[in-house]
């Protein structure tokens, strides 16, 4: 009988709690039926809040559980908090939409809960198999959520596209994992790191085999964070999926996948930094350029947000390319601010209704400043912030990653980043111009709903006043980044 060394179940308490809560809520839903959707949504958000507290009160030092399959440290604490905030806020934001658009089925909050469990497992993965299973749990829930309005053609199309391409990327990931396992003889991250540091067991051939594996893993993870050239699915899925699901895609899974990318590249493959840095450099530049240029021609606001998110991933990767603790700190700050901004922007998009119908065209926003000045103002704040205009929060996100890139001597990357953000500013500011200087189109419906107003106000205040009190985020990100560099 093999005894499990160091089970340490307590370290995984938030995950176990969320999984159990999801199962219980699923049972309630099955027996009560779809009329329980609103209650289940609120309960799910409550469960995420409880998990959030469990993550926060857990001891801060690095601990592994389940014989090294699972790890918690300051980095995982910070990222899990972000993911849980993003997921619970999007759940609440979607309440009105889900009810109005005939999507009020009890599986919706349950699937979001399961996706969150998967994301927490990804963030805490310390083993290639744990990484894969966490990623699959999250992705599978997301495929279903994308196709949740199964009677709408575009939603089904989004789900199918996402599923087929996602399965392909999972195949790449598994292929890469098997290469790495084959050449290091380990799936555990620390053991892989040791094997890589010793040049692989097989002498000169080891690193080549490991390198091929690393490239495949990088491809799969780049797909999950929708970085160029693995971004093709993003605009279609963002446009086709129901808007609350799109908001969820933008807020939570992207952060979890990014956290996974950081942990994999800076953990087991730390020694191969010169090799993966080239990949990250290319992906980062290509994402920033495509995010800035391809968004210009868009007329659908959700497609525009998709290209914008591709660009933002590029900026966040600038910090990783630096490969220093400062760079990682920059990535974490960037992700935090990006989450707040996209939650705010999507609560505006969720409020875009004309005579009870959802509208998604950018031109529908024309003259919003006259019909709903408060919403126009906050949308303008988010757009300016995403463009990176000081003193709004988005500026600081870019500042820290570019500073880290310059410290690491990556001047070219920083210059490309600044240039593309100038180009990107064009389409963000075009929306502001449309809202403030164009003749009003048909006015959007008012009131926009309590939950959307609260989210809008909260994220707006954080975006505007971030410069006044950035210390908590800076200190948290600093500690989180430091825990990845032992």
């Amino acid at each position, binding site marked *: *009988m*093999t*005894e*499990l060394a160091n089970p340490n179940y307590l370290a*995984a308490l938030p995950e176990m709690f969320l*999984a159990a809560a999801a*199962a219980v809520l*699923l049972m309630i839903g099955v027996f009560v039926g779809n009329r329980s959707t609103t209650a289940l949504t609120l309960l799910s958000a409550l469960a995420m809040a409880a998990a959030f507290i469990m993550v926060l009160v857990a001891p801060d030092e690095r601990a592994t*559980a*389940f*014989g090294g*399959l*699972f790890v918690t440290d300051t980095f995982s604490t910070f990222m899990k908090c972000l993911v849980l905030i993003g997921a619970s806020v999007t759940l609440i934001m979607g309440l009105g939409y889900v009810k109005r658009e005939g999507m009020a*089925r009890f*599986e919706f909050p*349950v*699937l979001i809960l*399961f996706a969150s*469990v*998967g994301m927490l*497992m990804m963030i805490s993965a310390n083993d290639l*198999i*744990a990484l894969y*299973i*966490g990623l*699959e*749990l999250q992705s*599978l*829930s997301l*495929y*279903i959520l994308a*196709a*949740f309005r*199964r009677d709408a053609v575009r939603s089904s199309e989004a*789900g199918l596209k996402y599923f087929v391409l996602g399965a392909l990327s999972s195949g790449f990931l598994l292929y890469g994992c098997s290469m790495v*396992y*084959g*050449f*290091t*003889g*380990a*799936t*555990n991250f620390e*053991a892989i790191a040791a*094997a890589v540091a010793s040049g*692989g*067991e*097989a*002498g*000169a*051939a*080891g690193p*080549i*085999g490991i390198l091929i594996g690393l490239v495949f893993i990088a491809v799969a993870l780049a797909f999950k964070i929708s970085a160029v050239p693995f971004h093709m699915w993003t605009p279609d899925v963002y446009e086709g999926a129901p808007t609350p699901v799109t908001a969820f895609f933008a807020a939570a899974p992207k952060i979890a996948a990014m956290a996974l990318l950081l942990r994999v590249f800076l953990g087991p493959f730390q020694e191969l930094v010169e090799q993966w840095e080239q990949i990250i450099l290319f992906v980062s530049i290509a994402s920033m350029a495509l995010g800035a240029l391809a968004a210009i021609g868009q007329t659908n606001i959700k497609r525009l947000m998709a290209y914008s998110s591709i660009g933002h991933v590029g900026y966040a990767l600038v910090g990783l390319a630096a490969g220093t603790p400062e760079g990682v700190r920059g990535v974490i700050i960037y992700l935090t601010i990006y989450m707040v901004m996209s939650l705010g922007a999507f609560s505006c998009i969720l409020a875009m209704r004309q005579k009870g119908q959802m509208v998604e065209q950018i031109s529908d926003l024309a003259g919003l400043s006259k019909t709903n000045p408060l919403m126009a103002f906050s949308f303008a704040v988010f757009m300016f912030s995403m463009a990176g205009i000081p003193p709004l929060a988005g500026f600081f996100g870019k500042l820290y990653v570019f500073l880290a890139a310059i410290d690491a001597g990556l001047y070219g990357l920083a210059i490309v980043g600044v240039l593309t953000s100038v180009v990107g500013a064009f389409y963000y500011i075009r929306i502001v111009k449309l809202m403030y200087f164009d003749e009003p189109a048909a006015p959007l419906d008012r009131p926009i709903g309590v939950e959307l107003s609260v989210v809008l106000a909260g994220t707006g205040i954080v975006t505007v006043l971030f410069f006044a009190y950035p210390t908590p985020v800076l200190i948290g990100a600093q500690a989180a980044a430091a825990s990845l560099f032992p």
Partner: protein
Amino acid sequence: MIIETIVFYVFAVVTVAAGVMVVVSRNPVHSVLFLILAFFSSAGLFVLMGAEFLAMVLIIVYVGAVAVLFLFVVMMLDINFSELRAGFFQYLPVGGVVGVILLAELILVFASGAADITLPKTVASPTPPADVVSNTEALGNILYTRYAYLFQAAGLVLLVAMIGAIVLTHRRRVGVRRQRIADQVARDPKDVIELKDVKPGEGASWKSD
């Protein structure tokens, strides 16, 4: 030893031949039958390697469930397979060229000695000697202890897959008469049976109230 080698080659040749037949046979039902043959012979190969558990799983899961499912799909859905395969010869030259180039590249890599493939000797979970612990027991020992976390997580993935299948395909049909056992049990003969005293030669008439 010599017998083992012969058996290995028999199984290996049958596996490869069946694999080829899966792709080239015109009748899809024959394809599936050859697939089952390929599974059986690979199970034989597993037994030769001393992995009897994998062999059994291959037969139970792949032959027992997956292949039979394929057979059902092939027979029940009206898919024109010859139409699907229409482009085969058209794409053959390009595909063949790509395949030859890949093969040449692989040979180059291995011939140049750049990738001297010697696999690591340490493995994550070494297989215990088969005469001490049987295969099944060894797998069970690590699956339910060391990898219990992954086992449970994989269960969650399956649960999500099940929810997904129901969410995306299940529709509540209207106008379906369901059996309500409670109602049936609660029926009382007094409410539904009426005894009439029928006089001879008159017949009975029944009028609902």
